[in-house]
């Protein structure tokens, strides 16, 4: 037997995921000893503590030197650690907004939080996976937990319908991705990204069809996961039917982890290929996703569904950042950013690290804004309205500024941030991505992005108008307060405003993380 020689330092990068899995196991086991009526308040607290702990460890890991772990099956770099931080933030906010949501429905159980923790552990590991089978398994770890969470509320027809759609399309896309993986394995004889670069060049000259078909299938699989048009059909239904805290986790964590893996895979697979091909692929996806996502969101009166379409639109802006990574021959308007170039490097390296920085900052910004907005939605909805489909109607927001000024202010901040209006984090993050895209010469695409985000402002500001300028509807139900929801609102509002006004520290640091992308 020749066992791999693992050292303890190999396990350090896994610490955030280990914390989450241990907390999940504690929740599952403690549930066994509880009677049906026992108080379960500790469960959300434990989840939030685990999220905070793994987030703190992730911050610490960012300062570790980038290196391969587990014989090249994973990579520890600032990129993956930052993604773990984003996932922990999403998990914490989703768990906080789940407290009131589950209590109102009498569905407070340890399994719910345990599944959230398992899903987040999968996301954290996916961000650092650099081997195709590991990537596939982590995608499945996070997906299977999210399928179960989507169908968690068994009463009513919507959750099971959403769970079913999510499951079928999720399993379908995993199979497509896996088939692409198998073809790349066939072409190169390895599944490790780092070992793949050399054989890939060789395979491109001897057997290009295998490589290209494999890469396209992998791209299609990821496009399903990040909800890029035309692979977005499941998103609105699943986001609407899933319990709102789960939707928050999906829009924040699942998307962030899938983007991380997409970037990691294609920065390797794209090497040696004609660079125009990945550029064309991602530019087309970005164009379709931005335009279609925003256009489809405009007629929505259902705020939860509107946020689902908005998450598609945001995937489009992120794909613009991904496309910017694959520009190799920049135009004349290529600008060297002296301020953000830390280690010098060619202008192209600088631009690429700017694009990576934009993607990472955007994911953090979107996590705070979207998780906050979904927490607000979950605070306003009532179970009785769900079957009628009016639980998330714009009318629910009418006159909120008079009834709960604090909530209305928080929601206004999230909407401005999602719309990309200063002084919020959403504006800063859009600025970073668009700037990176212009720097590498994707001017036309960036103009489309700016125009479509201007169109997006319409449906975000409509919510604000309803909250501040419409009268309170007759016979409005009293609004219940809950510590969890309010904590989530306060945290995300503070983050959205603060990161929008003072982005300096984070972006400076991220510029470094971008250059340190371990390859």
């Amino acid at each position: 037997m020749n066992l791999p020689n693992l050292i303890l330092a190999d396990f350090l990068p896994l610490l955030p995921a280990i914390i989450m899995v241990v907390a999940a196991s504690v929740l599952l086991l403690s549930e066994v000893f509880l009677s049906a009526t026992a108080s379960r308040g500790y469960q959300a607290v434990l989840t939030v503590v685990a999220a905070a702990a793994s987030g703190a460890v992730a911050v610490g890991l960012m300062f570790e030197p980038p290196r391969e772990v587990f014989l090249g099956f994973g990579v520890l770099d600032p990129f993956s650690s930052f993604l773990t931080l984003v996932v922990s933030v999403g998990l914490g906010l989703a768990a906080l907004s789940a407290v009131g949501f589950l209590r109102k429905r009498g569905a407070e159980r340890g399994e719910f939080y345990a599944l959230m923790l398992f899903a987040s552990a999968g996301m954290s590991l996916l961000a650092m996976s650099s081997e195709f089978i590991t990537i596939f398994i982590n995608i499945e770890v996070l997906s299977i937990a999210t399928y179960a969470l989507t169908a968690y509320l068994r009463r009513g027809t919507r959750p099971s319908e959403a769970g079913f759609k999510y499951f079928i399309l999720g399993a379908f896309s995993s199979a497509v991705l896996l088939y692409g993986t198998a073809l790349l394995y066939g072409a190169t004889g390895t599944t490790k990204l780092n070992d793949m670069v050399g054989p890939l060049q060789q395979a491109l000259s001897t057997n290009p069809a295998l490589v290209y078909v494999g890469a396209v299938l992998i791209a299609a699989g990821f496009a399903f996961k990040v909800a890029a048009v035309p692979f977005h059909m499941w998103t609105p239904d699943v986001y609407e039917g899933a319990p709102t805290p789960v939707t928050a986790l999906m829009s924040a964590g699942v998307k962030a982890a899938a983007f991380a893996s997409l970037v990691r895979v294609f920065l390797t697979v794209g090497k040696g290929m004609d660079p125009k091909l990945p550029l064309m692929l991602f530019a087309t996806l970005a164009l379709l996703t931005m335009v279609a996502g925003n256009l489809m969101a405009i007629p929505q009166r259902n705020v939860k569904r509107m946020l689902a379409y908005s998450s598609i639109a945001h995937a489009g802006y992120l794909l613009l950042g991904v496309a910017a990574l694959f520009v190799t021959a920049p135009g004349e308007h290529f600008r060297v950013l002296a301020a953000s170039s830390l280690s010098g490097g060619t202008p192209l390296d600088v631009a690429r690290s700017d694009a990576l920085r934009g993607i990472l900052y955007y994911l953090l910004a979107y996590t705070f804004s979207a998780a906050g907005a979904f927490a607000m939605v979950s605070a306003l909805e009532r179970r009785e309205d769900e079957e009628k489909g009016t639980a998330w109607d714009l009318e629910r927001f009418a006159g909120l500024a008079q009834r709960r000024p604090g909530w209305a202010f928080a929601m206004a901040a999230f909407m401005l941030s999602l719309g990309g209006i200063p002084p919020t984090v959403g504006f800063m993050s859009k600025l970073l991505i668009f700037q990176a895209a212009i720097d590498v010469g994707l001017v036309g695409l960036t103009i489309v992005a700016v125009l479509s985000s201007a169109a997006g402002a319409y449906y975000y500001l409509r919510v604000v108008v309803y909250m501040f300028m419409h009268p309170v509807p007759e016979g409005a139900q009293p609004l219940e307060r809950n510590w969890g929801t309010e904590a989530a609102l306060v945290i995300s509002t503070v983050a959205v405003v603060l990161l929008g006004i003072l982005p300096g520290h984070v972006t400076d640091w991220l510029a470094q993380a971008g250059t340190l992308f371990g390859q």
Partner: protein
Amino acid sequence: MVPITYYLLLAAALFCMGMFGVLVRTNALVVFMCVELMLNAVNLTFLAFARMHGALGGGPNAVFGVGHVSAFFVIAVAAAEAAIGLAIVIAVFRSRGSVNVDDIRTMKH
């Protein structure tokens, strides 16, 4: 010996059949079976390529290559997916008394 290409073509055909089935069949259980068919087509591809590459990457005396091991992982994951998938199909059946995909669309706007 049967050439590797034949196995790959068979796997591709199975994969396309599964993909086609997911897109057009209406019975939820059949759709689910088609997903499994796709995963097994992937397994066959992995194994065919593993045969082609030999036990590469598994050390000097290894019998199994990466492709063989991959197939085992896929089987395990497919089993986990089946467990959750069937549970969801049962939840759908309980709430509407049907597993027809065409009936599962209350959320169209």
